[in-house]
């Protein structure tokens, strides 16, 4: 409120730089949300007649307490990073890709086909070929709802759920039919699965290097996931496509009026999302099993949505969110071994965490935005004749904070 009508440009009151304030604010929000979630979880533990500190300690010991534990955690986090990135890329453009699940299932089929048919290639060529096949598989499955959305306006939530159903059946059919194991010894009873992939076509184990048990199946796919996160960050923040996607996601009208083709942008986001989704299943088939089993891990695509929420759709945030998620998942083992608290407690805790993170971030965001407004010295924008409607109340502080502070994209149209 310092500026008069035509006063000289803003008197800047120097305090902490905005980015530091934003960073500190986020950190505080994060710590607060963890604290609240753990506290709420303690109540449940007490209700089971256990000591919260013991339970949390056992979860910690199982996950971060040893090299093996950390190895397990990182291996669990690897596919979650890809899944959450896939979800977040679409989210930026105002799209809700529920179909990550189906996209990675189909990608596992295409990757398997490449693995079993390109085995004449040397390893350094075979593995990239398999990864590319996986990404193409995911892209094909994402392209269908993408094209339907752009061409006909069919809502992506509906179409992607349909595509998930088809994908599940497709995997079943492939494993019973064309991809069914044909190198099993006569009369031997085996699980429904494909032939084992050639060893040169697998994602090499990293565990040995860090003293982690091979049982954790920690592979360099983890690094690929981290690289993917950085690439997605760059894409969203530093490229034209990312810029246009964010504009489309936050204000489709302004984006269109600015000459952005909404359809073309959204289709491209779907394809990128599908490619990322394609890499989710690689941890399972290239690092863990070495073949495609029927009892594949279900639900990674859906978990990806939750992890993306937890990471506030920020690629770097997603990496950490996936690790936190994996720590809790790994904690399940500890619970079963050492306490009366049922393993479902972990799911409750994961849910609580999402809730508290979303809420505390929202609060932190508002505060930061309000502070920004205050600094800008504006009395305006709060109440005026072009407010969208009376019940909307004050509008100013609802805009998002600084550049680094990701909005939860609540304004999707």
């Amino acid at each position: 409120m310092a500026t008069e009508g035509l006063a000289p440009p803003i008197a800047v009151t120097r305090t902490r730089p905005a980015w530091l304030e934003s960073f500190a604010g986020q950190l505080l929000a994060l710590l607060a949300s963890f604290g609240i979630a753990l506290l709420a979880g303690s109540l449940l533990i007490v209700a089971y007649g256990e000591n919260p500190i013991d339970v949390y300690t056992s979860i910690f010991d199982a996950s971060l307490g040893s090299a093996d534990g950390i190895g397990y955690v990182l291996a669990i986090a690897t596919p979650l990073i890809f899944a959450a990135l896939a979800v977040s890329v679409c989210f930026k453009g105002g799209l809700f890709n529920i179909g990550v699940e189906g996209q990675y299932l189909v990608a596992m089929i295409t990757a398997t086909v490449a693995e079993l048919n390109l085995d004449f290639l040397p390893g350094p060529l075979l593995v990239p070929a398999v990864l590319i096949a996986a990404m193409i598989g995911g892209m094909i499955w994402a392209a269908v709802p993408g094209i339907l959305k752009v061409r006909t306006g069919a809502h992506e939530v509906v179409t992607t759920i349909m595509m998930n159903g088809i994908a599940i059946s497709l995997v079943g059919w492939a494993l019973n039919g064309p991809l069914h194991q044909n190198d099993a010894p006569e009369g031997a009873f085996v699980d429904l699965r494909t032939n084992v992939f050639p060893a040169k076509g697998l994602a090499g184990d990293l565990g040995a290097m860090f003293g982690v048990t091979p049982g954790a199946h920690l592979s360099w796919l983890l690094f690929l996931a981290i690289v993917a996160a950085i690439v997605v960050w760059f894409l969203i923040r530093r490229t034209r496509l990312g810029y246009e996607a964010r504009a489309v996601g936050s204000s489709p009208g302004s984006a269109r009026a600015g000459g952005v083709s909404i359809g073309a942008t959204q289709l491209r986001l779907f394809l990128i999302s599908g490619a990322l989704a394609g890499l989710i299943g690689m941890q399972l088939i290239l690092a863990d099993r070495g073949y495609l089993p029927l009892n594949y891990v279900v639900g990674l695509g859906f978990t990806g949505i939750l992890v993306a929420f937890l990471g506030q759709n920020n690629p770097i945030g997603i990496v950490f969110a996936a690790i936190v998620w994996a720590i809790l998942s790994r904690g399940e083992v500890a619970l079963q071994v050492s306490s009366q608290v049922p393993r479902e407690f972990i799911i409750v805790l994961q849910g609580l965490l999402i809730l508290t993170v979303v809420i505390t971030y929202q609060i932190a965001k508002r505060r930061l935005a309000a502070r920004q407004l205050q600094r800008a010295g504006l009395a305006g924008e709060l109440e005026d004749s072009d407010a969208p409607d009376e019940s909307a109340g004050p509008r100013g502080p609802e805009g998002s904070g600084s550049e680094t502070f990701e909005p939860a994209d609540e304004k999707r149209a």
Partner: protein
Amino acid sequence: MTIGAGAGGNGSPPLVVLDHITKRFPGVLANDEVDLELRAGEVHALIGENGAGKSTLMRVLYGMYPADGGRILVRGQEIKIGSPRDAIANGIGMVHQHFVLVDPFTVTENIILGEEGGELLDIDAAQQRIAELAESYAFRVDPGAVVEELSVGEEQRVEILKALYRGVEILILDEPTAVLTPSETKDLFGNLRKLREAGRTIVFISHKLDEVMEIADRITVLRRGKVVGETRPAETSKAKLAEMMVGRPVLFRLEKPTVQIGEPVLRVQDLTGEGKLNGVSFEVHAGEILGVAGVEGNGQRELAESLIGLRTPASGTIELQGAAIAGGAVFDIRNAGVGYIPEDRHEQGLVLNMSLWENAVLGRQDDVEFSGALGVLFIKKIKELAARLVRTFDIRTRSVDVAVSTLSGGNQQKLILARELETDPKLLIAAQPTRGLDVGAIEFVWKQILDQKAAGRGVLLISAELDEIYALSDRIVTLYEGKITGEFPPDAPPEQIGIGMLGRAPEEAA
């Protein structure tokens, strides 16, 4: 038409007293210890720029916002108003700018909604009461009409009747004339005078000074959340009021530059589409500002959006310097040299949660200057552009990195103008370019538009504000129900243009 007869007993005790009302929003002090007295039987104008706190103050009185400090006294009694229901119970009613009516219901059904008076409806009795009420204040409303078939002016009357039906004595009208044609405004003022004669009190929120001078008995001016003065029309002038509102002298008329009118830049023929445009034809020449006057909702939005490529017209041609652009992509039309100031800057102008620099390049992100072949943005270049725009258009901001949502409305509009004019468009489409802006910002925007004309470019100005049309246009056309209903010289009397805005040809009316 100065102060009316029943200008409230000056000696009588005030009906409503707002005592040191303070209202804070996060980061903003919207009302700072505001004192206000309303007397029985007066029209009290509350004026100020956008963001001055006038609507907030009245929303506090109407129970929509709790006050952070201060007292409200009605008839000498201190009362707590926690909701609009409390306010109505205390005889205080408010009509908002955006009406809250149920479209498929009749006028009567709308008015009694929430006040049905029992489980069994007696529509006939209610209708009778409403007809009498309307009669007594000279409201022209058919209580049996269905609301969706009413004009904006009629809907406003229904809203006022709704408040009166509830026995309201103090009626707050938030910018009531913003949505009305000149003749509808005249009707409204007739109603308000009747209400005043009957001893009711009216709070008239506005920033239109002509109207305030005409209708108000007393005027309170707010600036930045504080009362800066109280006066009467007889004791003041438009210029003085404007100076009180803005805090500095304001020019009301800008000099229109004289420019040689050139070749047609834009030629529109028989433009038809979506039921909202029915064979619109006109031309805009280089060095000319063509004003399109009309009440909103008569095809203005569709016209602007068809020209920039957001809509594909069903038929008709649009030529930009002889090249057909109808149905083209927005991207191509912009590149062909069209700048666009949308009527809703939040909907079509800015991405609010993105930064100033990101908004500064919107529409030009494909230029080789701003992004490479691989689609990587040249952020340094874009920030340079943003800094240049901030400098040349005097956009008040802490840095180019802030989210545009933190800018004031005037500064947001400056950013859009700066961005659109940066590319030297041959044609500027300015739709409601000063909507929601305060006096100082309006002056700035007008000057920029006149500069475009001076530079020999064509400007299509679409505005619901007749003042604005007069201040800028070289030629005026009126748009009614998707048709051009008349063309007027810039000095045509407002009554004539008003007739065009209502769809009758001038000669018919004469």
